């Protein structure tokens, strides 16, 4: 089991902290171990920091390239990368402490606090042109439009370009968002005979669903208004991503406060089990790209089966949000088609490299 936990952040290093955290939660549940509140806060803080890095990567690398023909915001993103690494080091090291229920690592919470301020400042400078907290006071479309018409950042200019180029509703579809699902429900699905099909092509209540920032932020007033006015197209998805990014520094601050409160003791829930006992656990982590689920089945401390449902499998499902959006695309010439497909893919943010290939449909014979 420990080998599996150590392998996770190495194999899945794009979102290695989230993967390791989900694996850790699954193994702890299997062993009947409950992490302390402080330890849960530490993990959540590191997952949130990774989400800041990933969201900012899309905003500062992909958006300028695709929407405003501007150079990437490398300087601001480099600051964020450095701060996220420093924060991780301050909270126990660059490599996840991959032992289920392990003792808390050496930490320097004052350095972590400084790095949190650096992240907040970098977002204010490079993304929002104001503090993230102030940006969250934008609660309707009129105020949002004022912001993106005045702010000089890549993110604001991108939203302006989306409106000017009439792309706001690009990708709009009837695909709903994935609701919050309990670990017990996922456990049953992932232990069923059909689990392999589910991990490759997950559906909920028989339907493909969207996971990620839009699913998580859809109750915020601004995102809800955008969704009501323009559906789940590019503009709403981008606003949801910005909203989530703006909310992360404050949430990270709250996690840090919990950590200041003390480490406590981990507790054993007493599921027990002898050397040959079967134990199972599920870990769910909300990553930048969406809901990530790990399911582990142990026998005598050895991993008998391990299943992962990644967010990309939901969003890029054959009946999911991307495919619905692609099927509704107007054909506007190969170059423009390729550009619009790239926009839709970036809006859903897959965790893998992608390439757009446009092929003419085969001619039907009469």
């Amino acid at each position: 089991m420990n080998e599996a936990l150590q392998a996770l952040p190495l194999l899945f290093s794009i979102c290695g902290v989230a993967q390791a955290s989900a694996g850790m939660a699954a193994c702890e549940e299997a062993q009947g171990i409950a992490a302390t509140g402080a330890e849960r806060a530490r993990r959540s803080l590191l997952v949130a920091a990774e989400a800041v890095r990933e969201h900012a990567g899309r905003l500062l690398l992909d958006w300028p390239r695709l929407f405003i023909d501007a150079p990437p915001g490398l300087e601001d993103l480099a600051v964020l990368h450095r701060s996220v690494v420093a924060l991780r080091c301050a909270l126990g090291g660059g490599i996840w402490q991959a032992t289920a229920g392990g003792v808390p690592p050496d930490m320097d919470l004052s350095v972590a606090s400084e790095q949190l301020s650096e992240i907040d400042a970098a977002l204010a400078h490079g993304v929002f042109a104001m503090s993230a907290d102030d940006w969250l006071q934008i609660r309707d479309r009129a105020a949002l439009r004022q912001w993106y018409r005045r702010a000089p950042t890549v993110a604001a200019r991108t939203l302006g370009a989306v409106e000017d180029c009439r792309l706001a509703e690009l990708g709009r579809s009837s695909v709903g968002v994935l609701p919050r699902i309990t670990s017990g429900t996922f456990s049953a699905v992932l232990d069923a005979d059909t689990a392999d099909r589910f991990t490759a092509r997950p559906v909920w209540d028989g339907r493909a669903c969207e996971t990620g920032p839009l699913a998580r932020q859809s109750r915020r007033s601004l995102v809800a208004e955008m969704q009501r006015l323009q559906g789940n197209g590019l503009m709403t998805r981008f606003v949801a991503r910005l909203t989530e990014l703006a909310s992360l520094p404050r949430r990270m601050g709250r996690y840090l406060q919990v950590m200041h409160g003390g480490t406590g003791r981990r507790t054993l829930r007493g599921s027990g089990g002898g050397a040959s006992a079967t134990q199972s656990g599920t870990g769910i982590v909300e990553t930048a790209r969406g809901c990530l689920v790990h399911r582990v089945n142990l026998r005598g401390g050895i991993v008998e089966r391990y299943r992962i449902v990644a967010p990309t499998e939901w969003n890029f499902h054959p009946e999911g949000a991307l495919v619905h959006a692609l099927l509704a695309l107007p054909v506007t010439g190969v170059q423009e088609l390729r550009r619009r497909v790239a926009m839709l893919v970036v809006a859903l943010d897959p965790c893998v490299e992608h390439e757009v290939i446009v092929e003419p449909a085969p001619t039907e014979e009469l």
Partner: protein
Amino acid sequence: MCLAIPARVVRLLDDDKALIDIGGVHNEISLGLVEDVAVGDYVIVHVGYAIARLDADEADRTLALFAQMVSEHEGSSGEIH
């Protein structure tokens, strides 16, 4: 899923760029997000940018894991999930 194979830096280029090698395939990437990268270092690459530099031990362990997965995959008809 987001498996990330370490890429070895083969040559440093102008404009904060580098030539990398992944399994014999060479690609040009940006080093704009990481610091102090030298020839021979391993980096994790995402959408054309190095996003992390690995220490030698971490890179060796990661490459060994991928080699083990490929070898086990070739020995069975199943998919890697």
